[in-house]
């Protein structure tokens, strides 16, 4: 089943009248076609201003599309808002979105009440979620004193109070230390195993590669590509790659002339990469390199980061519009 389906989705923001008196607007989503299959973790990658958060806001029903259609589990976000809200949980990164003067337990009680849970279910769900995100021991402490990682765990628990079929994670690991971020990814994997659908927006390529079944690269409000993170590499290069160490460069002579070898590049002093067009050529190159004493051999495909930079471009600090 399709969890999310957007067709020709467009969202513009009114910027008021310009100097010439004409209405100015910025296009955040530009006739976006987008689909997420149920039970998958779908990554949304793109630079700042690409339209990722706008899409999440529309799916969370806090923003209306300007035109086009979006359905969540078959429910239109405009005409069947209540049904969509019952099936979606929202988690965004950062410090805000929690009641800092309440304890973790009180926060969850509150949100469970807003989702209409009867008292007994409310108590049980709260305890289950606190245990799940590892906050049971700290559940009676005010959120004010929580670390960023603990707040993010509580954010995730809050996003799950309604037992959502679709979880929107908008840059959820922002500011987390590596250990907390790893734990968070493990939780995401658990949620996927339960059959939940997860839409994850992130700038973190490693995170997207680690947890996503499919990734959509988005820029300027348009989807540039949607693929499995590993398959996305083929958009940049269909070649296989062998990387190796050869401190004295003894392994290099004759490599470029081998059948099927299309490039030999230096990655860093003593570290090289050979690109081949076919598996047979790769085997021959590996055999030769081993004979010549090359070490640290690995075969690779273009990573997500490389694909991202290739398709979206390296903009430095520039923010897209």
């Amino acid at each position, binding site marked *: 089943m399709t969890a999310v389906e957007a067709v020709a989705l467009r969202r513009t923001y009114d910027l008021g009248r310009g100097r010439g008196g004409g209405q100015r607007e910025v296009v955040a989503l530009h006739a976006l076609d987008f689909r997420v299959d149920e039970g998958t973790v779908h990554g949304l990658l793109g630079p700042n201003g690409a339209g990722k958060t706008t899409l999440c806001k529309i799916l969370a029903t806090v923003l209306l599309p300007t035109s086009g259609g979006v359905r969540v589990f078959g429910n239109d976000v405009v005409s069947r808002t209540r049904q969509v809200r019952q099936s979606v949980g929202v988690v965004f990164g950062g410090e805000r*979105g929690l009641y*800092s*003067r*309440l304890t973790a337990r*009180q926060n969850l009680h509150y949100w469970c009440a807003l989702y209409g849970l009867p008292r007994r279910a409310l108590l049980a769900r709260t305890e289950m979620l606190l245990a799940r995100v590892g906050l049971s021991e700290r559940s009676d402490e005010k959120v004010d004193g929580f670390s960023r990682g603990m707040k993010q765990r509580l954010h995730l628990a809050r996003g799950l109070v*309604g037992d959502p079929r679709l979880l929107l994670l908008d840059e959820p690991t922002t500011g987390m230390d590596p250990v907390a971020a790893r734990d968070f990814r493990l939780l995401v994997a658990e949620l996927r195993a339960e059959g939940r659908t997860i839409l994850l927006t992130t700038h973190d390529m490693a995170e997207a590669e680690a947890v996503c079944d499919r990734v959509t690269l988005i820029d300027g409000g348009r989807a540039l590509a949607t693929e499995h993170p590993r398959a996305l590499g083929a958009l940049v290069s269909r070649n296989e790659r062998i990387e190796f160490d050869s401190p004295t460069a003894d392994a290099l002579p004759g490599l470029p002339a081998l059948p099927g070898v299309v490039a030999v590049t230096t990655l860093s002093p003593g570290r090289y990469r050979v690109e081949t067009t076919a598996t047979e050529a790769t085997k021959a190159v590996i055999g030769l390199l081993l004979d010549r004493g090359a070490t640290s051999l690995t075969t690779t495909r273009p990573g997500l980061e490389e694909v991202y930079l290739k398709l979206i471009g390296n903009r430095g600090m520039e923010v897209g519009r």
Partner: protein
Amino acid sequence: MSALVQSLRVVGYSARNAAADFAATYTWRSWTFGWVGRMLSQVVFFTLAGRVLGAPDQARSRFIGNAVMTCVVEAMMVVASSVWERRAGTLPLLVASPADLAPVFFGRSLQWIASGVATSSIALLALGPLFGIDWTAVQIPAVVLLQLLTAVGSYCFGLVLGVLVLNAPQLRNIASNVAYLAMMSFCGIQVPVDYWPAPIRLLAAVLPVTYGVRAMTALSAGGPAGAVWRPAAAVLLLGAGWLAAAFVAFRVFAERGRRDGSLEFGQ
């Protein structure tokens, strides 16, 4: 679960948030000697000012009006505290939840009603005898009930203003201050309502505090029951009207936010 029961539950859980905010804002000492002390001083100041300015006959009504006003001043803090949801970054999450916004916001600032009723009760009961107003034991529950009605009615009016300033958070304190200063001027607190021209009298006629002061004045004077319960009923009806307006206003606010994109994640 009926919609009413669900709304009441949301109000209850939201009120816990209000209590937590109150506990973080005041200690018993700072509330008693800071807040209550300040409000009692205000009541005494305006009452004595009436005497000094040569209107000793008005001292009684000024005292009643300003004492009742203390609970309204505090109830009007709902205007500012409604904006706290934006500051906490919870507003988009509330809109995205299946709950109505109005019960959430109704419960969210109830601490001001509790504190306001306590403050004005202290003012009326403790300071009253100093200005020639003695209460009988039978009157005391009615005194508290009338203040509760007035505070709740004014709070519902404040909720409507709170919705308006959700889109202009920088105006939150200005809006609440202007609102209660206007009430002090126009609603029979400092000068009789009849002093003002018709448009302002019309404004005073839709504000619950106008009738709350009338009911309390009648009660303090030992007037007939009808002179107390008729304005008290007006407070109740106007409060219900403002609450209904707040329900509509919150829905309009949420829909408008969805249209214009003013509900940002993290805001």
